């Protein structure tokens, strides 16, 4: 079975400081990994994904994530946080299938607050 864990319900960071939102996964096989952001009363927006290749993936709004197979982690990072980055962040996983039609498995979400 596939699962994703986001160990922190809440992350607080000062504006201008680097931020990290943690994600670990448990799958049998090589995973496809995704990060999403959700602003209040909106749907989830896709930020970035890891499929294969370079372990450091760059995405929208200056975010990046590092795939670490030995630690089964895919942490989301940004070098300098903005107040506008304050939102709910979701990590998700899918194991490759021939059809690729299975839904993503989402973590419970981490609320990021960037303080001015």
């Amino acid at each position: 079975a596939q699962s994703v864990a986001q160990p922190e319900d809440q992350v607080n960071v000062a504006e201008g400081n680097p931020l990290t939102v943690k994600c670990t996964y448990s799958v049998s096989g090589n995973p496809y990994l995704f990060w999403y952001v959700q602003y209040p009363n909106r749907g989830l927006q896709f930020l970035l994904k890891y499929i294969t290749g370079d372990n450091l993936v760059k995405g929208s709004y200056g975010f990046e994530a590092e795939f670490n197979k030995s630690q089964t982690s895919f942490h989301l990072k940004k070098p300098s946080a903005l107040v506008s980055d304050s939102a709910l962040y979701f990590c998700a996983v899918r194991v490759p299938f021939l059809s690729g039609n299975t839904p993503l498995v989402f973590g419970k979400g981490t609320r990021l607050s960037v303080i001015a």
Partner: protein
Amino acid sequence: SQTIHQWPATLVQPVGSPLSLECTVEGTSNPNLYWYRQAAGRGLQLLFYSVGIGQISSEVPQNLSASRPQDRQFILSSKKLLLSDSGFYLCAWSIRGRGGNQPQHFGDGTRLSIL
């Protein structure tokens, strides 16, 4: 480009009333379609997903049902709403196939309040 529309954006319904939420996708063909519920701004609960017209997979037992009458239309329904059906309902789509390396794309949701 592809777009996804959900309506209504907000809905207030009495207990025991019926429900119909609609989701449509434009700019793509044969998408996978999904319904999620999100409670209190936290995690997502997958309710239904569909890989084609008339093909619905139900993930959790509940008094909700889903239908896909057209390729790009996905409807969430209930005959009699319960208080526990309150929440934020999100529709999503993804490209079918390609080994699963495509993200899901979400609509802006419907906030449902049951009184």
